[in-house]
């Protein structure tokens, strides 16, 4: 276990370390009970994955934390404060990308900054950097309908990263990108977690990805959604990303999670 890793492992979440805490949150859509009395803590400077069958309420939970949806009961505490609406400390990557069709890639990426009142030249410099970062250099002036699915998703990602929020809510951010981009992004996220102490809440359907990246994984089971299990994988990433798939330690955690999820289905 590397030094950083063990530090994380020891720093068991104490009061002041919790970046986001949800307590007894419920949410119904008409007759559909999406979330029921859910409580979860997201420690600061860690990456928490939400893993669960589709339709179990992951997007709903993320939107509630972001302040985009009203919950029916319970409370959301971000940085010690009860929140009811969106705030500058949280940025969102949308499952359906939510790009502005009338705006270029540049304007879309800079849109978060634009809304924060950053002057044009400054925000375009910054956006430029993130556009490069997600591998879209050269497409600054393209419109969303001229991009492939994965490219659109990366625009949404760049937009969220560029506003420099300290809690990032990512709803299946890599579902449409290719393997090598995904791996690069994973490394980028991990370095943001390690170096800038950002807090990530991350929805994914890939158990492997969750196990590889997460400090903790919340397994959710559906209707109404509840936390089934919390797992802290503590993978030793120093072995190199290419070798990890062969590590029995890693494979065991993946299998264990898979077993939990499958148990529910059957």
């Amino acid at each position, binding site marked *: 276990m590397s030094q950083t890793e063990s530090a994380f492992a020891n720093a068991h979440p104490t009061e002041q370390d919790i970046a986001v805490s949800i307590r007894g949150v419920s949410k119904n859509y008409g007759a559909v009970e999406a979330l029921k009395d859910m409580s979860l803590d997201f420690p600061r400077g860690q990456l928490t994955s939400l893993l669960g069958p589709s339709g179990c309420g992951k997007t709903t939970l993320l939107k509630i934390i972001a302040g985009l949806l009203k919950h029916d009961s319970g409370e959301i505490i971000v940085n010690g404060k009860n929140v009811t609406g969106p705030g*500058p400390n949280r940025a969102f990557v949308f499952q359906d990308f939510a790009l502005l069709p009338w705006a270029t890639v540049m304007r879309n990426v800079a849109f978060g900054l634009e*809304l*924060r009142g950053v002057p044009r030249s400054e925000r375009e410099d910054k956006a430029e950097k993130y556009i490069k970062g997600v591998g879209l250099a050269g497409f600054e002036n393209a419109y969303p309908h001229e991009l492939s699915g994965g490219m659109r998703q990366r625009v949404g990602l760049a937009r969220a990263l560029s506003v420099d929020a300290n809690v990032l809510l990512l709803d299946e951010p890599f579902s449409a990108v290719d393997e090598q981009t995904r791996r690069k992004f994973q490394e980028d996220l991990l370095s943001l977690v390690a170096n800038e102490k950002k807090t990530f809440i991350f929805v994914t359907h890939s158990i492997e990805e969750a196990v590889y990246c997460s400090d903790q994984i919340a397994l959710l089971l559906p209707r109404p959604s509840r936390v089934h299990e919390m797992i802290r994988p503590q993978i030793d990433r120093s072995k190199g990303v290419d070798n990890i798939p062969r590590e029995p330690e890693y494979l065991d955690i993946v299998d264990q999670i898979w077993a939990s999820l499958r148990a529910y289905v059957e």
Partner: protein
Amino acid sequence: MQNRALYLKVLSALLVFGAWEIAGRIPVSYAFPTFLESMAALARMTFDGSIFVAYAETLKPLVVGVAISTFLGIGFGLWIGLSARFDWLFSPIFIVMQAAPLAALIPLLVMAYGIGLTSKVFVVCIMSMPVIVLSTSSAVRNTPASMKEMAKSFLAKDYEILLKIIIPAASPMIFSGLRLGVSAGFIGAILSELKITPTGVGDIISYSRSIADYPSMYAAIFSIIVLAVLFLNLLEKTENYLFKGNDRGYVTD
């Protein structure tokens, strides 16, 4: 592509003008001049400058009225689209305005605002504002929810959601409303010149009609149409320039 569009325009114009010329020569009616006669009349009015004098007069109420309707109309439209309360209170007014038979109401306007510019501006506004308001408000209601949500997550203030999400998303509808509004404004300007006081182009139309100088009458009508079309093309250019990405092209391409 560019060229094809141009060819098509020229070709269809030729067809229509040709048909006009032939219809005028038959003639379908003694009151229906040929295309060439009308163009000759137009040329005459252009060279002696009378058409410019007329337009200087006609454009006054038109420009003022259209400017007022555009700003107030979009403003009201957005407000109605956004606020149920406002919708409840005010949209009936615009429906009434839209349906009101203006020609029949002109005595009322004359009574209230006299026979001068104010009445004419009023006629232009009554004609053009309701379409703009109604188009804008229905477009506002159809703004994609996910984009509003996205903007909210990035802390857009209400006015920013309005300016940066709702207006661009509604812009195709707003612009089609604007087009109709502007053209209704043209109708209003002419109507007021026919019905309140004949000045400007309305005067040319009614005077040449009363002296049975039909070529001049058709020339005046023709010139208004040309002007209106030029104006609308300008509007379309503006739309394409402002909201380029909204143009997703044609399915057949």
